[in-house]
């Protein structure tokens, strides 16, 4: 196995992380956890951006998508409820 294949495998893995985290963000009843999952999605995607030869986008996604966005979400969660209601 050469390096390219390895990297491809890593990509696949990261993609899986993205999807799983996305599902986690969607279903986790704890909103803080869901927010963190969403942040992980962004972070993993910013890694994928790197792999897609897009360092600018990767940086931006990491700083804004994963960082700032998540922070705002966290603030919002703190200002409202942390746990999704039962029937929601």
């Amino acid at each position, binding site marked *: 196995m050469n390096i390219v294949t390895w990297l491809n495998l890593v990509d696949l893995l990261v993609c899986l992380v993205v999807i799983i985290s996305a599902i986690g963000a969607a279903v986790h009843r704890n909103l803080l956890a869901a927010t963190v999952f969403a942040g992980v999605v962004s972070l993993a995607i910013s890694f994928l951006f790197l792999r897609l030869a897009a360092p600018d986008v990767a940086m931006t996604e990491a*700083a804004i998508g994963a960082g*700032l966005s998540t*922070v*705002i979400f966290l603030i919002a969660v703190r200002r409202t409820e942390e746990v999704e209601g039962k029937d929601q």
Partner: protein
Amino acid sequence: MKQIISIIAIVTIGFVLWQLVPIAMPSGFGAVTHHYVADGLKDNGGSNLVTSIVVNYRGFDTLGEVTVLFLSVSGAAFVLRRRSGLEVQEPVPASEIVQTGARMLFAPIVVFGAYIFVHGHLTPGGGFQGGAVIASGVLLLLLANRDRALPHGLLSWVESLSGFGFVLAGLAGLIVAGSFLANKGVLPLGQWNRLVSAGVIPIIYILIGLKVGSELSVLLDVMVHAAGDEEAN
């Protein structure tokens, strides 16, 4: 019931969108892209083609984008303005360590952010990324010192003047080179890979960085303080 319909609809639309995957496969550059890649350096003198596009070729988009950010921050502030029935958050005093650490880290973070956007035309990164970094410094301050307000006056001036500067830079292009936001012909493009090169691009990117940084800072401030701290006016 509605949820079942929703799921079915999403699955179905997944199949519809799946048709698009073949389109997404690599194909040759179009004429426009070809120009960007082939002549981007010659046109703008910056080695980062993305920056060339963002600041020059499609600079008008970026101006709009900065406006969007400005607008959404204004909007959020407007939504969360006083008399909106929000409870004022009780300030939770941060620990001494956090406060001290925050103060110590703030300056380096801002400098780092500035570094990113100053080199935007050369290396990956630019105004947005640098701005975001600066905002994270502000966030740190906010975390540490919730009860102490940010330098709103300064932020406000930076916010306004950097945006105004962006438009002015565009107008400079209009006056000097006959086209809004023009780069070529306004300032010398300079030598490749120098800090001072690529004409107005670094200037604009710096302005963008300041603008984004201040906007995001205000946004964080608005979100954190919301009703506790009235919008600047």
